[in-house]
């Protein structure tokens, strides 16, 4: 992927497929480091399946399709000297608190660091594609400011009859984010 924001778009699709109702995309950035955490309340993965998802070539299992999304994200983190960690709890393992947390850590000054890129377009694409899922986005910037978007707040202001993927609403979200980034 040319931008980490494209990896985010890709990884979040897994949360959507896992029937998450709330997906948190949390970015913490300093001058030297970046942490990207994607947290969902979806159906979660068993420890066995988790293993195949991180390294699709380590298995001979053919019963499930395993994609390249997580391996590519892991590679992007590791090639900067960072790492990717995943924890996941299925409904059976934890009925009250199930879901998956993927966290990737990057050293920004490493020559193989992939730029974050257009994270605003990623968020707008996600809301457009999944208007019934809620997203919380927080990006702590190196200067201490935080960029914030919470579709639950948007939904409350919009009421039930206006879908989040209406063009006017998507434009509001885009402008709100760009403004907070000072773009």
């Amino acid at each position, binding site marked *: 992927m040319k931008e980490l924001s494209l990896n985010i778009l*890709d990884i979040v699709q897994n949360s959507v497929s896992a029937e998450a109702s709330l997906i948190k995309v949390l970015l913490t950035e300093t001058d030297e480091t970046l942490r990207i955490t994607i947290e969902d309340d979806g159906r979660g993965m068993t420890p066995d399946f988790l293993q195949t998802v991180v390294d699709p070539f380590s298995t001979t299992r053919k019963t499930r399709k395993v994609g390249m999304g997580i391996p590519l994200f892991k590679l992007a983190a590791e090639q900067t000297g960072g790492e990717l960690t995943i924890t996941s709890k299925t409904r059976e393992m934890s009925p009250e608190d199930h879901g998956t947390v993927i966290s990737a850590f990057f050293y920004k000054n490493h020559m193989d660091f992939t730029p974050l890129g257009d994270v605003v377009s990623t968020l707008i694409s996600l809301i*457009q594609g999944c208007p019934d899922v809620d997203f919380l986005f927080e990006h702590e910037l190196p200067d201490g400011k935080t960029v914030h978007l919470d579709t639950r707040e948007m939904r409350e202001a919009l009421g039930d009859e206006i879908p989040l993927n209406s063009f006017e609403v998507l434009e509001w979200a885009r402008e709100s984010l760009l403004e907070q980034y000072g773009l």
Partner: protein
Amino acid sequence: MKSLEELAAIRNKMKDKVALRENNGDIRIVVGMATCGIAAGARPVLNAFVEEVSKQHAENATVTQTGCIGMCRLEPIVEVFEGNKERVTYVKVKPAMVPRIVKEHILGGRPITEYTIGAAE
């Protein structure tokens, strides 16, 4: 600073329009957004469709996303479904192609053959 109050204003403005729109979406524009599509540039294509459909008032169309369509080397792929008509598959789509697809195909009813999978194969 954008405020949530502006969303309440959008809500009031759109109330009547939404009911109208729901009855009219008989064309579906489906953008492949799996790993392969995203890596090949599907995100700007998706956003271009969302923008052009609104800009050109193509109120007969809805833009949706799907997973891998199964021809990763031809991504970004966009499929157009309309009633009983045969589906039209556009391949290696670029944002610059989108205004023309919306104008001539979605609004005008004439698929752009040179962008379709038939021309690429």
